[in-house]
């Protein structure tokens, strides 16, 4: 990595994802943004990483960090790769923004031996309270958007996601609920976790 890069606080969800990966593995990060997560994985787990990103400015930043980046959207970015080319395909905080999440997850599990998916929990207790008492679509710190400007196309809970996986024969190897207080949420994650991180596999 560039030594000039200023030290930046590592995001908690990135730490959790890093803990799920085996060292030296081959990783594809879908919607890698500025490359924060990939850079961390390369530094701490010595992975061989590739990113897919749609934003041109983010590509420049990722490239600057020494990453291999392909300019594509998540919906079409996976078809180029051969089966099981990667050990892990990561979809962190991007699934809710893709057009065809089902296709993307199945494709991720085709090109990857495993997939790591991070989703925002739209049924966190705070959101439920807003719906129940205020009668409005929740706007929270994790979901700061109004209905008219949200980039999110899909609204799901951890329970919804579990059912989705079950119905498609996708094995949930691990589920880690995390709160916005940088803690894991082992108790009633569908109620108390702001984010769910999943390690998935499919035969």
């Amino acid at each position, binding site marked *: 990595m560039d030594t000039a890069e200023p030290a930046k606080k590592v995001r908690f969800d990135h730490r959790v994802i890093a803990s799920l990966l085996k060292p030296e593995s081959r990783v594809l990060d879908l919607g890698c943004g500025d490359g924060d997560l990939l850079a961390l994985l390369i530094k701490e787990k010595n992975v061989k990483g590739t990113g897919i990103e749609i934003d041109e400015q983010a590509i*420049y930043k990722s490239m600057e960090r020494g990453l291999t980046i392909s300019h594509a959207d998540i919906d079409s970015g996976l078809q180029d790769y051969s089966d099981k080319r990667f050990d892990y395909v990561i979809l962190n905080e991007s699934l809710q923004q893709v057009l065809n999440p089902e296709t993307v997850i199945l494709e991720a599990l085709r090109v990857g031996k495993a997939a790591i998916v991070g989703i925002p929990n739209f049924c966190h207790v705070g959101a439920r309270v807003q719906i129940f008492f205020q009668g409005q679509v929740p706007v929270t710190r994790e979901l700061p958007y109004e209905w008219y400007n949200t980039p999110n196309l899909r609204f799901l809970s951890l329970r919804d996601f579990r059912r989705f996986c079950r119905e498609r024969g996708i094995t949930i190897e691990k589920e880690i609920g995390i709160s916005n207080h940088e803690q894991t949420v082992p108790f009633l994650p569908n109620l108390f976790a702001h984010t769910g991180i999943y390690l998935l596999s499919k035969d």
Partner: protein
Amino acid sequence: MNNSPIDPHSVGIVETQHFTCCVPPDELHLKSGLTLGPITIAYETYGTLNDDKSNAILICHTLTSDAHAAGYHAGDKKPGWWDGMIGPGKAFDTNKYFFISPNVLGSCKGSTGPASINPVTGKPYGLSFPFVTIEDMVAAQRKLLDHLGIKKLFSVAGGSMGGLQALIWAVHYPECVHSAVLVATNYRHTAQQIALHEVGRQAIMSDPDWLNGEYYGKTIPARGLSLARMIGHITYMSDKSMDEKFGRKLIGKEKLGYDFSHDFEVENYLKYRASSFVQRFDANSYLYISKALDYFDLSEDGDLVSKFKKTQAHFLVISFTSDWLYPAYQSKDLVRALKANDLDVSDCEINSSYGHDAFLTEVESQSKLVTHFLNRLHREKFHGHR
């Protein structure tokens, strides 16, 4: 920018050198089955070759360009064609790398081409010059690198036709190429690209002064060649860039003339560019090189993916949103084939309104990508880490 030698980001004053090879009976065997020799290659170099000759980068040029990619020829005010990209501290950093910029085989800018003297007849080759392909151009470059003692290129880079040469390097000489930078290019010439070239060729060949290519020492087919160049210029720009540059601005008059003299600035621009072009470029070279481009098809048997089986190079593929001559989707197809071979490939479609010319004008965004790409490979190769 001026040609003062104290400009810290210019390579300064440079000179074109010449190298001759393939002297009979060791002629170059061309893709067409014919042979050619002797062959002279004009080239320039910038930067310093390191002791183990591992820091060399080959720069490949376009249809009508030349070996003069960076710096200034003594007395010139205009720098080389990719000067914004090549120099001390620039994306192609002459403080780190050694650059070789050859003029292609078939050209008229110092390398052997149809305007060169055929040693057998003592006269210019004209149409007796054998057809050369992109593969042949690259084979001749290989001879130059052998001469310079360079076994492996740290990178090979080029835009447009230069990208095709870089691609051939990575495919035909996989052991010689560590990385490739392909800009505004593709892997096969499409029907539209061939059609546009054919109009240019017909313009040249229908000029009465062309004389079946035997015009040397007589009047050059200036009308035909300038028409070909005008068409070329239109294809290098975009709808938007032309309108921004010229709009409907009139030239030398207050209102429309209602005659066929030039009314619009764009008409005048094309005429000016074409008239300066015919003074510096040979019509037969235009015919030969445009045909070489049209013959180019890396997927000629319908299979692109398998062509990269032996390729090991790292790739950077750059395209531009408004380039309709080499549209970005063609770069994407190429990237797809590279990925299917598990190759390390980064790609970016730069947002630009400059059309195909963007690869010469969009220096800043291209520089970012090229700098970061080469920096990573440099760290990995010379310092053993990313």
